[in-house]
């Protein structure tokens, strides 16, 4: 399967989706001009991955900031992950960032995927 490896920019996150190495990570800032267009390749990739996933998938979110349009797409990603067996989420937030911690808690209440919360 192809690897998605996007460098982060001031308004888009760094994304690594690498099945062979078991790395699934979205980090940085997310406020793209067109969130739906930006995240479509990620959703397509997950559709493909879901057909033949690894025995376990640990998806890392390490976001510094995301806008409301991105939050809808993050929920779409989580909804895809919900359908993949043995998936867990590692939700990182800066130790003094209560809003990011709360955002993770809210997402964890919206989908049936185990979340682990970690600070950095």
């Amino acid at each position, binding site marked *: 399967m192809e690897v998605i490896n996007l460098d982060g920019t*001031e*308004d888009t996150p760094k994304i690594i989706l690498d099945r062979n190495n078991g790395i699934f990570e979205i980090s940085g800032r997310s*406020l*793209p*001009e*067109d*969130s*739906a267009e930006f995240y479509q390749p990620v959703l397509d990739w997950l559709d493909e991955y879901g057909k033949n996933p690894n025995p376990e998938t640990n998806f890392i979110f390490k976001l510094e*900031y995301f*806008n*409301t*349009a991105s*939050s*809808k*797409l993050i*929920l779409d990603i989580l909804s895809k992950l919900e359908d993949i067996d043995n998936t867990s989420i590692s939700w990182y937030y*800066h130790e*003094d*960032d*209560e*809003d990011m911690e709360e955002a993770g808690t*809210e997402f964890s*209440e*919206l989908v049936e995927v185990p979340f682990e919360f970690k600070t950095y």
Partner: protein
Amino acid sequence: MKYIYELHKTMVARNLILVYEGEFTQEITKSVLAMAERNMDAIGEDSAVKRKVFNVMVECLQNIVKHSDEVEDGIYTDKNSAIFMIGKQDDKYIITSGNPVANDKIEHLQSKLEYINSLDKEGLKTYYKDKIKKSKGLSPKGGAGLGFIDMARKSGQKLQFDFEPINDNISFFSLKNW
């Protein structure tokens, strides 16, 4: 040349630290955000405050990019119809925006803002979760319909707003966050 002095006095009197008037695009949004961030870094602003201010600024600026309506009336052309300002009074930031909206959208906008203002912290949280869960996708303009709710949650204050008629079809929508 007196208008320069007058404008400066207005800015000082209103505690404005940044005023941007002109075209609003994603590129401009990034520049304004970078400038405001540097400004807050320079004074050693608390990182929690910085994050909240950044958050409200993004939603405000992207709202203008996505939803500002075009107006050509008198001094207004579609290239110069919106404004974005950051003010700082004592240790509080005030983020304001102004842009034209078609009159037929006002009723919907106003009831949405009033509803948000009627909710407390828990109510806003429930409303946010409910909306994000139920929405089928982004609007044709790329919004999630969550911007105002997020602003109210992050600022912890009621959203102040006003509509000033420009002409029979369009009004100037002002929004203040602090």
